[in-house]
């Protein structure tokens, strides 16, 4: 099992490296001279030259990449063009807010989703089941920013006016409601469906039937026999949803003007702020890969066939 995990980890690292390569190559294609960008229009040629040396822009691309990579490894993501400060500094705040946002969304969505999923599995083919399956289907299909806008139209200033539709520095906690809600809606459906599917599969399985035929009472059947086998895939899908969030926040943050990585990314793209774009994309990809990895590991760990070496 540990071997499997190590292998997974290695692949994760490999992927991340490949991603860094892609990102670097991509951003190299951007027009504009870094030094010029940083110093701005009215910088004297001398200073530009000096900076170019300092940024070793004269070096061949390969070297530049290596330096860049080295920098990243050492946690130095370079200097943002737009506001000439350390990228790490620029990002620290937004990353925190984004993580908080994602965390809240996950916290809001997961328990409800699991409950709904389990109930519809137990009430299979009854009204509740149909309702929930329809509901999840509908919600799942709508792009998250559309969900967001619908929420705004409904609960925002234009509608019932319960919650503000844009985030601002001096706004109260109520401005978190709509973004969190939107993301929660985006995250929940797959969890519900997976929970339902696995529960049904497990409950239909021969070993649960056998447990029943053994005369084990229902609670034990559910908790001792069904649950352990259902936990794996569900946990996995939950993790995957979190991974999705890493990319999903962008549109939502943009919509609610929420000061997180997503918005930073949009601004960075707007301003052709290469180092920032690189950093954010890498960051998001990194989180994405990491969480996927965790999902894998959970999947493995939950499976005794893997957990316990075969004889």
């Amino acid at each position, binding site marked *: 099992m540990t071997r499997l995990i190590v292998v997974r980890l290695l692949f994760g690292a490999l992927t991340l490296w490949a991603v860094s390569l892609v990102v670097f190559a991509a951003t190299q294609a951007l027009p504009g001279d870094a030094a010029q960008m940083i110093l701005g229009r009215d910088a004297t040629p001398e200073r530009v030259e000096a900076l170019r040396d300092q940024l070793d822009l004269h070096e061949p691309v390969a070297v530049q990449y290596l330096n860049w990579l080295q920098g990243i490894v050492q946690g130095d993501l370079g200097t943002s063009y737009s506001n000439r400060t350390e990228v790490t500094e620029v990002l620290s705040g937004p990353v925190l807010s984004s993580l908080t946002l994602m965390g809240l969304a996950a916290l809001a969505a997961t328990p409800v989703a699991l409950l709904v999923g389990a109930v519809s599995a137990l009430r299979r083919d009854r009204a509740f089941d149909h309702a929930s399956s329809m509901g999840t289907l509908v919600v799942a299909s709508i792009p998250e920013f559309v969900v967001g806008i619908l929420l705004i139209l409904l609960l925002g200033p234009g509608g019932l006016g319960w919650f503000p539709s844009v985030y601002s520095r001096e706004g109260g906690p109520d401005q978190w409601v709509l973004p969190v809600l939107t993301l929660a809606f985006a995250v929940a459906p797959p969890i519900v469906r997976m929970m339902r599917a696995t529960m049904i599969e497990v409950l239909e399985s021969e070993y649960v039937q056998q447990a029943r035929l053994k005369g084990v009472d229902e609670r034990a059947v559910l908790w001792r026999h069904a649950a352990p086998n259902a936990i794996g895939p569900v946990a996995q899908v939950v993790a995957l949803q979190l991974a999705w969030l*890493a990319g999903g926040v962008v549109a939502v943050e943009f919509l609610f003007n929420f000061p997180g990585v997503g918005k930073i990314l949009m601004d960075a793209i707007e301003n052709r702020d290469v180092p920032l774009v690189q950093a954010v994309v890498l960051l998001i990809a990194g989180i994405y890969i990491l969480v996927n990895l965790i999902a894998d590991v959970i999947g493995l760990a939950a499976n005794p066939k893997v957990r316990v070496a075969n004889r």
Partner: protein
Amino acid sequence: MSAPVNAGVEPVTVVPRGRGAGLFRTAWGFGRTKVGAALTGLIVLIAVVGPFVAPYTPTEFVARPFETGVDGTLFGGDNRGRDVLTRFLWGGWTLLLLAGASAAIGVAAGTVVGVVAGYRRGWLDDVLMRVGDVLLAFPQLIAALLVMSIVGPKVWLIVAVIAVSHMPRVARVIREATRKVVEQDYVKAAEAVGLPRWRIMAVEILPNVTSPLLVELGLRLTYSIGVVAVLGFLGMGLQPPTADWGLMINENRQGMAVQPWAVALPVAAIAVLTIGANLITDGLSRAAIGIDRGVEK
């Protein structure tokens, strides 16, 4: 080992396109599929017929920006004072076209990769899948944004990026399906006979992964619609003054409070469209599972 339920039924003389049609028939059996078809049809109708029935041209000015209640306009003016209804009627087909194209290309490419990887196994499989992993490491939207920010928003690019981001996802599914099929002996039978690999893939394997294929197509179409819309919404899709639903939402967000229509209409359309597409997909997948049970014993 159980004999199939329909053992010994009278030979159905003509079964067009093997199971494919069967799949559709079964899918149609579910009420939700019908609903989905109706919803999708409605939006497609709007998108296709819209431009011909639009009262104005999408770029002419009929009102002050965000002005409502202007006579001659049903929903007032947008951020430039162009007729919201007209732009709504015009804004659909671009979305459908881009989404359709990217989904089709992505699924086609993904299928090829998936079948090849799943059948040939070995290093080829590994390479293809590793590359896929790298692509998968970019959330779809992020990948699109990255490329857009570099090359700038171009129509072909939008299609390409979305298609590429679909490819590995489709490939994975098809690969799994292919592997199941490859396990089956009729593939080995064909190998024993020495049928060329490509023909085995084309004749023996491909027809047996149509069910997951159709489901993927539906799924990817739904996603494509979403991504195209989001790109437009983020201003990274089609550029003004094009009338495009995603872009409309972006352009008119500012005035949501004064002129909700300019946002509500396209938002509603996108929502209905995606829901419809997803309903159909769901029907298909249910049908597919039902059917394939026969195949996989």
